[in-house]
């Protein structure tokens, strides 16, 4: 018996054409249950509970006004986590977008073995952040890491360095580099797709007009791939604002390079101060929404060929 006739037996009303008024709602019902119950409702909870004292050890929860927020702003560790995360985001978005742009331009034209190179390009994106943290922790190792070894052999450094957990900015850069390794493929694929949508006759026209390589890149290519770059910037912004796995593995118990997500995790699940965790989370949600809207407005202009 085919699946369809089975379904007709079980759900006679479903398969008749008269049911077509109800059918769409039945088809989207499971989606709405998941999205409503496990995405939208939790988001509302995050907002509401950020104004309550929520501590699983001393229930019940009670209204606290803005107390969670004011407590967070007087905590220097929390404030540093925001500063650090701003640095993660700026470094992450800038470096990954620039790298992705260069990679996309290099992989734009056909060449033998291009499918293989594209698979190699995508590889770091497909791996767990935790594994990447473990792999890079050994690369960065202050005593035996290959980064130290290579730089030392090339006489670029005179002694082995501690890359992480010393200087704040350096720690953030080297931890973010691991995340850049993971998210650059995504940006590169997005930009590559924009490049491939440019009509090639535009370049023939530019060549006829005697435009040079740089001029062609600046005047034709870059403006036309603006939408691809915009999406890449927004994606890398959201990913780096959520940085957690790499910091968790590479920064260890030190607070030097702590991120907002790590701080939220510690406040909530280590200190068990859920109310403050909610407040921290809600601020991060607000920042995400505002910056995304702003970014899209600034960079996303309609492109016409």
């Amino acid at each position, binding site marked *: 018996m085919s699946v*369809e006739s089975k379904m007709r037996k079980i759900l006679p009303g479903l*398969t008749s*054409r008269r049911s077509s008024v109800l059918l*769409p709602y039945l*088809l*989207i019902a499971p*989606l*709405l249950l*998941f*999205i409503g119950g*496990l*995405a*939208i409702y*939790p*988001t509302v*909870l*995050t907002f509401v509970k950020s104004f309550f004292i929520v501590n699983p050890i001393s229930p019940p929860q009670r209204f606290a006004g803005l107390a969670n927020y004011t407590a967070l702003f007087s905590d220097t560790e929390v404030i540093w986590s925001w500063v650090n995360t701003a640095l993660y985001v700026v470094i992450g978005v800038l470096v990954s977008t620039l790298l992705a742009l260069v*990679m996309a*331009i*290099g*992989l734009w*034209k056909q*060449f033998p073995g291009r499918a293989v*190179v*594209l*698979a*190699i390009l995508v*590889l770091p994106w*497909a791996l*767990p952040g*935790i*594994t990447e943290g*473990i*792999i890079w922790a*050994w*690369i960065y*190792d202050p005593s*035996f*890491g290959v980064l130290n070894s290579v730089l*030392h052999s090339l006489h670029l450094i005179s002694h082995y360095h501690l890359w992480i957990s010393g200087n704040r900015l350096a720690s953030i850069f080297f931890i973010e580099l691991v995340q850049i390794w993971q998210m650059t493929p995504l940006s590169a*694929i997005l930009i590559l*797709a924009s490049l491939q949508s440019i009509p090639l006759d535009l370049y023939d026209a530019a060549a006829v007009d005697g435009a040079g*390589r740089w001029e062609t890149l600046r005047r034709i290519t870059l403006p036309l791939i603006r939408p691809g770059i915009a999406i890449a910037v927004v994606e890398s912004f*959201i990913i780096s604002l*959520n940085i*957690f*796995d790499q910091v*968790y*593995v590479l920064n260890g118990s030190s607070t030097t390079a702590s991120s907002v*997500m790590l701080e*939220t*995790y510690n406040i*909530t*699940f280590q200190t068990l101060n859920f109310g403050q965790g*909610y407040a*921290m*989370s809600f601020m*991060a*949600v607000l920042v995400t929404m505002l910056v*995304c809207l702003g970014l899209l407005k600034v960079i996303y202009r309609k492109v016409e060929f």
Partner: protein
Amino acid sequence: MKRYNLGQKAIIAFVCVWSLFPIYWALNTSLMSNENAQSRPAHFFPFPVYLSNYKSLFSASDLWPDFSRALLNTVIECVAATVVTIIVAVLASYAFARLQFRFKSTIFYVVLATLSLPIYATLIPLYQIMNQFHLVNTYTGVVLVYTSGFLPLSMWIMYNYFITIPRELEEAAFVDGATPVAVLLRIMLPLALPGITSAAIITFLLAWAQFIFPLVLTSDNSTQPLTVFMTGLLGRHTVPFTLMNATGILSIVVPVVIVIFLNRYIISGILAGSIK
């Protein structure tokens, strides 16, 4: 176009080294004894090849019980989350792509808007909800959370695939008296298979990489996936880095195989999931 060649070659070489070197380095380290790995300058080839790191992961008296359990948990959670996500997303995206109903565009945009919700929005409430329903430390809890997170993306990828399928085929079937459900199962599903494959692969890979949600939702090895197992191992100071690298290599075998053989689906999925 010939003059681009040198720059193009340099970039291709850079992409290969950039993507592959860290993975090669982990493999290299995992095949070394501790003494060999701790040499200055570093050794670029793992000779003599040393298999003890892998042996301790595969030996029943050592790490195998915990490691195999974590691997099994990862596989169960990823497969279940992928299957549930795909079924729910296929039904909904077909309705959005083909059927007319009230509030369709409002519901559609609300679902899409949840695509941009950061982890912050749901992490703590989902823990509290799962705790309330006694779903902490259960596969069900993990799978429900993964599914709710990956659904909007899968729905969007499939929706974008469904709308490229010409309507003539379905209309012919409707004329022959087929019902919408029959059309979905017999005509749309086979045609949309590449889109469904893309969504399934991306969902599976995202689930495989999860860390913070299982960290919060699982507290013992009955449901902890590989990522949580690995950070636990990292916390034991007796575990040498050569062994950590061996565990890391084993944790990426499945994603690496998927990328090697199914990369075109990943790329088309990423593009269908983000453009517009």
